[in-house]
C-alpha cells in the first residue's frame, strides 16, 4: 500500500512533467499506466474516467489523476496523485517565473514547440482511438449503430450550436437513459 503511494507519486509526477498543452495530453500516459500496472486501472476504467472527468468541474488532468489515485489507494491515493501531477508545474513555474514574460519569444522554445505539437497530436489520437473503439464498436468490431448515429448527431449539433459543453454532457446522459444504452 505504502509502496503503491510512492509509485503513484512518481508516475503522476512524470505525467505532470510530460503533459504539455492541456489535460488531453495526459490520456496517453494514463493508457500506458494501464499496461504497466494492470491492477491499477483498466481500459474500461479509462473511458469511464474520461466521461466522469469531462462532466465534473476542475481541470481535466487533475480530475483524471484523482480518479486513478482513488482507484489505486483510496482518498489518500487521490490526493497524492493530484499533488504529484501538479508538482512539476509548480516547481518549474517558480524557477522560470522571472523570465516568463519573454519565454514564449525565445527561438528555442518556438522551435521545440514546432516539433512537439504534431507528435503530441499523434499521441492524443492514439489514446482516444481506443475510447472511440470501445464506445462505437462491439468487441467483435461490429458497429454499435445506435451509438454511432447519436455520435454523428452530437458531432453536428456541437459544431453548430455554441452552448456550454456541459449542456451536451447532460443531453448525453439523458439520451443514454432514454435509449437504455448498454455498457
Amino acid at each position, binding site marked *: 500500500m505504502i509502496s503503491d503511494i510512492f509509485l503513484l507519486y512518481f508516475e503522476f509526477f512524470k505525467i505532470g512533467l*510530460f*503533459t*504539455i*498543452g*492541456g*489535460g*488531453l495530453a495526459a490520456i*496517453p*500516459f494514463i493508457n*500506458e499506466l494501464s499496461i504497466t500496472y494492470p491492477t491499477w486501472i483498466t481500459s474500461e476504467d479509462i473511458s469511464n474516467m*474520461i466521461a*466522469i472527468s*469531462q*462532466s*465534473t*468541474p*476542475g*481541470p*481535466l488532468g*487533475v480530475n483524471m489523476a*484523482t480518479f486513478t489515485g*482513488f482507484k489505486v489507494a483510496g*482518498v489518500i491515493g487521490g490526493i497524492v496523485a*493530484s499533488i504529484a501531477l*501538479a508538482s512539476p*508545474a*509548480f516547481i518549474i513555474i517558480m524557477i522560470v517565473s522571472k523570465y516568463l514574460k519573454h*519565454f*514564449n519569444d525565445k527561438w*528555442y522554445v*518556438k*522551435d*521545440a*514547440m*514546432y*516539433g*512537439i*505539437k*504534431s*507528435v503530441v*497530436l*499523434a*499521441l492524443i489520437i492514439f489514446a482516444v482511438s481506443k*475510447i472511440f473503439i470501445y*464506445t462505437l464498436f462491439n468487441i467483435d468490431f461490429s458497429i454499435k449503430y445506435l*451509438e454511432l448515429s*447519436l*455520435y454523428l448527431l*452530437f458531432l453536428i449539433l456541437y*459544431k453548430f450550436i455554441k452552448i456550454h459543453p456541459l449542456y*451536451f*454532457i447532460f*443531453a*448525453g446522459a*439523458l439520451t*443514454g437513459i432514454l*435509449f*437504455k*444504452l*448498454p455498457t
Partner: protein
Amino acid sequence: MNNNKVPLSSLFISFFSVGAITFGGGYAMLPFLESEICDKKKWINSNELFDFYAIGQCTPGVIAINVATYIGYNKRGVLGAIFASIGVIAPSIIIITIISSLFINFQNNEYVISAISGIKVVVCAIMSHTIYKLIKKSIVDKTTFVLFLLALLLIFVFSINIIILILSSIVIGIIVKKVKRNLNYDK
C-alpha cells in the same frame, strides 16, 4: 501588478472557486479566471493572463496550476504558490473522490450505466471537435505533417515509449528549424 499583501486565504478561496465552477479545464477556465483574478481581484490584467495562456501551452503541466502557481508566487512567494495551486486542485480532489466512491456503489445501476454510456458518446463528439482544432493548429506545413505521420506509425505499429518520442520531437523541431533557417526557407 500591484504588490499589496494579498492574504493567503484569499489566494486559496479565489482559485478554489475557479476550480469548482469550470468544466473542462484549460481554455474553458479562461473566462472564469479573467473575471475572478483580473476583474474582481485585479491581481494581473487580462493581457498578462493571455500571455500566460500562451506560455502555459509550452510549459509542462496543467494550465490552471501554472497560472495559480505564477500568481501565488508573485503575490506571496512560495507559500502563496502553494495556497493558490492547492486551491485550484482541491475542488477536483473533493468532487472526484465523492463521485468515485458513489460510482463504485452505483456502477451496476442500469440508469447510471446508460447515462455514462450516453456521456461517452458525447465525449467522443467533443473530443473529435477538439482534435480537429488541434490538427489545424499543429500541422502547419509539410514537415509537421510528416512528423505527425511518422509519430502515428511509431506509436500504433511499434509502440514506442511516449517520453522518448516527446524528447526526440523537441530535438527534431530545433534541428529542422535550424536547417530551414540556414537554407533560408523561413525568416
